[in-house]
């Protein structure tokens, strides 16, 4: 009974996203062992009807991307979840840069995002990173990140599969650097 088979059974049985931490406990293994079992499982599942989807710290078993169309047709299930312009923009920002604070999203969009974030949270497309009170009391606000369900809607099984992911990530880093430089410059010259 290999670890990857146990992981497969675990994810199937669970039927919803599970944190890697919980998977480690259930499988009684280390993070390294889990990650390597995850890779083996993904390899085994390639070209099959199922896949493992991950948003970084959670994993879930889902139907494979190629199956989406056939299942949708079968269930005649309509994806009512229509997304507005503002909602999609906010999701895009969170997908490419997370964890992210609301103030950062406001800064990029130039508008208060509270209501959109609330709506996306309720729809289960994004989630808050922490519910730790001490964190909130420091006035640092919540951190937001994409849910597995959001990736599933896009037909993507892991964050790095997003279009131009590595490039955009690098751009954000250089943006933060430039911004930081500007701040330092300001402080020194004042």
């Amino acid at each position, binding site marked *: 009974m290999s670890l990857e088979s146990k992981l497969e059974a675990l994810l199937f049985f669970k039927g919803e996203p599970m944190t890697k931490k919980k998977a480690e406990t259930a499988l009684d293994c280390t993070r390294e062992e889990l990650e390597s079992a995850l890779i083996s499982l993904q390899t085994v599942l390639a070209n099959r009807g199922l896949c493992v989807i991950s948003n970084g710290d959670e994993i879930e078993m*889902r*139907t494979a991307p190629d199956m989406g169309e056939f299942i949708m047709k079968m269930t005649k299930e309509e994806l009512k979840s229509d997304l507005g312009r503002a909602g999609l923009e906010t999701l895009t920002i969170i997908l490419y840069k997370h964890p992210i604070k609301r103030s950062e999203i406001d800064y990029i969009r*130039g508008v208060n995002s509270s209501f959109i974030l609330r709506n996306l949270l309720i729809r289960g497309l994004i989630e808050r990173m922490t519910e730790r009170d001490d964190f909130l009391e420091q*006035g640092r*606000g919540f951190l937001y990140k994409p849910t597995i369900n959001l990736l599933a809607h896009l037909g993507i099984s892991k964050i790095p599969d997003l279009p131009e992911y590595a490039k955009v990530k690098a751009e954000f880093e250089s943006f933060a650097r430039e911004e930081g430089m500007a701040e330092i410059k300001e402080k020194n010259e004042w």
Partner: protein
Amino acid sequence: MSFTVKQEHFEGSLELLLDLIEKRKLFVSDVSLAKVADDYISYVKDLSEFPLADSAHFVLIASTLLLIKSKSLLPTLDLTTEEQASIEDLERRLRLYERMRKLSHTLRPLWGQKMLFARGERELLPVFSPDDSMTISNLLSAAYHVLSNIPKKEFLPKIIMDKVISLEEMIMNLTKRISASLKMSFKEFTGGIEKDKKVNIIVGFLAMLELVKQGIINVRQEKHFEDIHMETENVGVPKY
């Protein structure tokens, strides 16, 4: 040529700015920002009917556009380091927003096309298993916690208000500086295009500053009304 934007509702301040630039088929730069400043400001002037929480973001960007426009009209106008930084910051933000918006257009067609479905629900066999936290007093305090997290109507955070007020001061200050600079460097205008024309542009611009000032005063009055919804979570204020 100016573009009418009044009929459309723009949710985001950067969304409006980027639309104005794209309609003119320009790239993000200080030059293009100076060109769209008038259109943007005329939109913001009508914002007093919008909730303050939203219009504040528009007003803050308008202030930076005023600086860019002033500098483009009067290259001799000295900007402070802070003013220069706010211009650079706006350009950077706008490029980032532009990038995100384009990416969102890339993601749009993927939405719901190759959905990865979750496992179907199986029959549940409940086993009654409460945990230790389930006591009457814990439940009541959980109820209070839920109620305290429900979004409430509250005032715009003071920091944004202060920024809006300081914008008003900034406009007055800018008006003075431009007027002074106009007298001091009149020679500037004799070179190049007809000086009358350029002076007219600047006089018109000064008049516009006055109008914007009035608009800001209207916006400020809105704080007397209580209908401003904000999230109760500690509001992070973007820096400008």
